[in-house]
């Protein structure tokens, strides 16, 4: 939004506005100190703690903690779950956003609410829903057990819970952008003789790719870091159904603090990488927005 706004304002007005809106230096410094102090205290310090605790007994202890079979299994499971749930949510998210922004139909607002549901429900409840459906006492429990299909307390259950919890990320990221972009370009493509598939690949996808990547990134971060929902459906079998966050808790509970923080540090590293990637994507996204706004402005003038 601000990018769009900027492109309309001339430099002169901008300086005057800035002078009017700026606080005196004392206020500015105080606010800045407060803000940065808060960040250091609540974000910086915990992050540093994770790494110092993980390396408390040196690199050898750190590496051997990660080399342990159970830790390895947890990393493998986390990656597997993300590798399944993130691409699926990417496809679902694009389809959902496409439906919502490019077509008019009854029940649209209901669909939007439904997409947001996983955000508003506590993750523990999300997990319990799957236990109630697929657990032995649940709706499909006996049928699954008779056919020897394991969902709850196995990888499929963890994947399902993760998909549910991370579902909104991609769609939520795409909907505002696609709404803003409207349907003119697609309509033009169709008039020029493109079929639906061509329209999507050649027109829609290039327009949304940065927002899509951004959504996928957030989705992936949450998929790997989810605790509550996964904890309910995991069964906590060591070396089998513990994801990295669950394994971290177990190690901590076993007084194995170095190993717990070693696994946690991997998650923290992931968060840092996500942060950098996020900044890059945000920058790209801003550019795309500005470009789009400019093309509209040009078309209108």
């Amino acid at each position, binding site marked *: 939004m601000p990018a769009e706004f900027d492109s309309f304002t001339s430099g002169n007005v901008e300086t005057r506005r800035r002078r009017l809106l700026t606080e005196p230096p004392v206020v500015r410094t105080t606010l800045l100190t407060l803000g940065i102090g808060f960040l250091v205290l609540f974000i910086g310090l915990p992050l540093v703690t994770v790494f110092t605790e993980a390396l408390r007994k040196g690199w050898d202890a750190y590496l051997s903690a990660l080399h342990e079979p159970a830790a390895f299994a947890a990393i493998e499971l986390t990656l*597997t779950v993300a590798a399944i749930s993130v691409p699926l949510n990417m496809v679902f998210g694009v389809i959902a956003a496409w439906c919502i922004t490019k077509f008019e139909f009854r029940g649209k607002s209901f669909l939007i609410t439904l997409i947001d549901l996983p955000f508003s429900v506590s993750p523990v409840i999300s997990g319990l829903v799957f236990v109630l459906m697929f657990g032995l006492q649940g709706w499909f429990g006996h049928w699954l057990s008779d056919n020897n299909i394991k969902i709850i307390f196995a990888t499929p259950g963890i994947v399902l819970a993760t998909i549910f919890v991370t579902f909104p990320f991609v769609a939520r990221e795409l909907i505002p952008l696609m709404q803003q972009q409207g349907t003119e370009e697609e309509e033009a493509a169709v008039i020029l003789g493109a079929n639906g598939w061509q329209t999507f690949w050649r027109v829609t996808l290039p327009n949304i790719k940065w927002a899509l990547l951004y959504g996928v990134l957030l989705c992936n971060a949450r998929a790997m870091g989810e605790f509550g929902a996964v904890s309910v459906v995991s069964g906590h079998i060591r070396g089998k159904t513990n994801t990295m966050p669950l394994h971290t808790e177990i190690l901590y509970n076993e007084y194995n603090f170095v190993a717990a923080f070693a696994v946690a540090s991997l998650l923290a590293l992931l968060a840092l990488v996500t942060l950098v990637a996020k900044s890059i994507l945000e920058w790209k996204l801003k550019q795309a927005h500005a470009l789009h706004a400019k093309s509209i402005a040009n078309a209108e003038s």
Partner: protein
Amino acid sequence: MKSRFLTAGILSAALGLFAQAAAAQTEFLNVSYDPTRELYQQVNAAFTKQWEANGGRKLQINASHGGSGSQARSVIDGLEADVVTLALEYDVDAIAQKGLINKDWVKRLPDNSSPYTSTIVFLVRKGNPKAIKDWGDLVKPGVAIITPNPKTSGGARWNYLAAWGYALKQPGGNEQKAKDFVAALFKNVPVLDSGARGSTTTFVQRGLGDVLLSWENEAYLAIKELGPDKFEIVTPPLSILAEPSVAVVDKVVDKKKTRDIADAYLKFLYAPEGQEIAAKNYYRPRDAKVAEKYKDNFKKIELLTIDGDFGGWTAAQKKHFDDGGVFDQIYVAK
């Protein structure tokens, strides 16, 4: 390119699952309660060695730990445990009621299907600054007590019943006084974790509270892991005989055809080797010889029993821990 990535992801995941399933080991799962992690790590290693040396199939024993009540719930919901080794009879009964374990399970093994016992002690900070010697000292003002939640934790139910039993045994003790006593005790509890191990880390790591009501084995382990210079154990003159229960989950072993392993596994817990491992991990062994060898570790104190003093687990559970029971009344009243 994206679709290729997608296919690759699904394929590799599927292959991973397949590889796991194809491994030529028999997988065996022991679902246990919170403080037994170290015990069963050692038991599993020793049993696997013995089993395979005796020509049994190749074994992969897995373990799952958590609050006893929530673990029982998971087994009821389909966690495929070959055996359960939980904190108390009632939690195994809950599984039996759903038909997964035969109703007569308590009688199938010696000593009420409880191969080792324990009791409830106090873990205090070094030097015992609040001078806590007995249950009565816990309700003094300004004493912060750490105990898990009796709704989810087996250990917490033993804690609660020991306190109740103490109050009843006092001169002039009656039901009302016992209720007031546990109410006063839980007023001094700042945080209820869901399992025993959570409470221990709250007390020893996060430094909350003056006294931890703890399994004897859990208290010894905390001292061993974190140093005798920080904590000491106070064994009250009266406590409760905690009998953790073990059982084969019949429905699961029949389906997985692992009954032979499950039976041998539980028998191993009663055998001298298993008893020795239990004693080394500060569980009170049943075997007289092993008990004699480790008698210095375990103080002789007066122990209430669940059957003698509380009319068995079903009655105790109904009266104290079911919804609307005494615990709900006193804890909500806070």
